[in-house]
């Protein structure tokens, strides 16, 4: 296979160069694996000399440059509520390389960070100036070939946000399943957002369970209805980590543990 590598001075120019057979490279942890194994679906790699890895508070949220690595997230106090997510992605070298932007495109069993961003209703900022909510971004990501420049995440308290990665090999195995929760309300739940990773081609929301949690409290009887419908709308697949049947069978168990976790 013959590849060409093109380097542009700015993100804007790089964004104009990406297309059907031209891929932008972030950290390369997924893209270079594809190159090493002879992926024929692209023949140009686009590098931008300008990289945005800044993480800063902006209004009610935290803006994370798409070029920020998982290690950058872990070094940022402003992104502290996302540390439990970044910490469990890969090993140290993967965290030094893998970016937030690349994670938005990572297919199952990867995409743990994207799962958290979906639960938190983050906004994806594209190079052409458009903003998209995570949910619509994810549903169109395989067709869209735009460059992501940043994500903006509502700043939540550590009490409101919960994350669990369930993997078979610790500490750095890929997710058999990931669950992210954003729970608002004191005592009773006013609003819940639930996202599952590796339970479909992209991270997906469990909307029936979100609905069933509204107005309930975090007790076993309070969450029972939500657990019963938590797989509605999810599309788990068989893969070497687990079968779809197993994933559906254990999803309520893991969701229950996360909801009832004492904090």
């Amino acid at each position, binding site marked *: 296979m013959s590849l060409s590598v093109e380097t542009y001075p700015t993100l804007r120019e790089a964004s104009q160069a990406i297309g059907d057979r031209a891929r932008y490279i972030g950290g390369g942890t997924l893209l270079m*694996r594809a190159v090493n194994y002879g992926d024929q679906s692209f023949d140009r790699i686009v590098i931008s000399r300008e990289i945005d890895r800044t993480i800063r508070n902006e209004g009610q949220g935290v803006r994370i440059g798409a070029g920020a690595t998982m290690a950058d997230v872990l070094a940022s106090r402003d992104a502290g509520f996302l540390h439990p997510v970044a910490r469990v992605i890969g090993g140290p*070298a*993967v965290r030094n390389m893998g970016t937030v932007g690349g994670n938005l495109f990572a297919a199952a069993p990867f995409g743990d960070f994207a799962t958290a961003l979906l639960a938190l209703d983050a906004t994806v900022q594209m190079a052409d100036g458009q903003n998209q909510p995570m949910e619509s971004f994810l549903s169109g990501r395989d067709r869209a070939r735009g460059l992501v420049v940043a994500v903006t995440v509502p700043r939540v308290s550590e009490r409101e946000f919960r994350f669990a990665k369930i993997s078979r090999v610790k500490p750095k195995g890929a997710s058999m399943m990931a669950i992210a929760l954003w729970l608002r309300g004191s005592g009773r739940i006013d609003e819940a957002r639930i996202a599952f990773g590796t339970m479909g081609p992209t991270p997906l929301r469990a909307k029936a369970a979100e609905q069933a949690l509204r107005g309930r409290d975090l007790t076993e009887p309070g969450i029972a209805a939500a657990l019963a419908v938590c797989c509605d709308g999810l599309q788990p697949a068989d893969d070497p980590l687990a079968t779809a049947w197993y994933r559906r069978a254990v999803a309520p168990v893991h969701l229950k543990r996360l909801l009832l976790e004492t904090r």
Partner: protein
Amino acid sequence: MAKVPLTFTLNDAEIGVFVVPGSNLLDVLRRGAGDLTPKEGCAQGACGACTVLIDGVPHLSCLTLAEMAEGRRISTTGGLAVGPELHPLQTAFMEGFAAQCGFCTAGMLMSAKALLDQTPNPTRDQVIEAISGNLCRCTGYEPIVDAILTAAAKMQGRTA
């Protein structure tokens, strides 16, 4: 495809090579620069045998696009010894039987070096975390963890 020039620093030596576009850094180090210390175990990020330091930070060279190493400072196990004098990590690995077949060793050493550069007195848990991206099929890890702790102690003038 025409080769393109690439320059970087490898263990304090200035290197200039021509690379096939889209090559990974591991191939460039081994075939282009002749440093055979980083190993290819998987070419997909899973084993860590190819771990090198780029500007002091552990990276998987098999997943690093060569062009992105332009102008960077790369350290490999090939640069650990000073003349005939082995690095304390190398000595500790040798004396503690932390290498059996040796295929993982160069990657383990670089992950350990990055840890000790930042954290000269690591806890056992910190050592385990630091090498969590490096697989070893021979030793069962315990001798490796012990060797890293021994080297840390030696470098601090303590006994482990």
